[in-house]
């Protein structure tokens, strides 16, 4: 089974800190994604990547950046954390092919104080 691992389950950071959220998949998938989930808003796409060093903005990229130096690792960076970035962050990896499904990590609940 594909495994998508997010390095932290819970994080508490201070306003203004630089925050790194890490995501690793173990199946050589090309497409990886970062979402945030907030009550009543569903899952919103922040950034995605379809190859090493390739990245595309999703619906809400402001305040975030990403890094994909290796195929298996996709990092989400909050350059200067703010309280409105308190949220659940979910990473996903897409199975290869046109009919691919997705595997999600278990999520990182980030609180910015």
């Amino acid at each position, binding site marked *: 089974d594909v495994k998508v691992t997010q390095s932290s389950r819970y994080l508490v950071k201070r306003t203004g800190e630089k925050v790194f959220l890490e995501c690793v998949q173990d199946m050589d998938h090309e497409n990886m994604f970062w979402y945030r989930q907030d009550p009543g808003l*569903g899952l919103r796409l922040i950034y995605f990547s379809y190859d090493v060093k390739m990245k595309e903005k999703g619906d809400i990229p402001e305040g975030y950046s990403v890094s994909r130096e290796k195929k298996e690792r996709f990092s989400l960076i909050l350059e200067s954390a703010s309280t409105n970035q308190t949220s659940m962050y979910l990473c996903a990896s897409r199975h290869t092919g046109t009919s691919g499904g997705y595997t999600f990590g278990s999520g990182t609940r980030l609180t910015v104080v």
Partner: protein
Amino acid sequence: SQQGEEDPQALSIQEGENATMNCSYKTSINNLQWYRQNSGRGLVHLILIRSNEREKHSGKLRVTLDTSKKSSSLLITASRAADTASYFCATDASYSGAGSYQLTFGKGTKLSVIP
């Protein structure tokens, strides 16, 4: 923008009844997926239906897809209290070719099954 839009936003039924949730989307898709999420927990993939399929079954789940109307429905038969959760549809679509894809979610339907 969010591709899938679920309807209704909330649904409350008695145990034993069927629950039907609908999803509409806007653009061409490769497949449509339904996920479930219990409160405070992770996403669980329920079922995937490809764009060339019209109906699919998995246990007590039945999914239909109408690409001409850009809509899908999820039916849960004989609901139990344990089915109480939020249900999301998500559409998988190609993004600017070159093997790039995007999965876009709706806001979800909150299902409550009353014992």
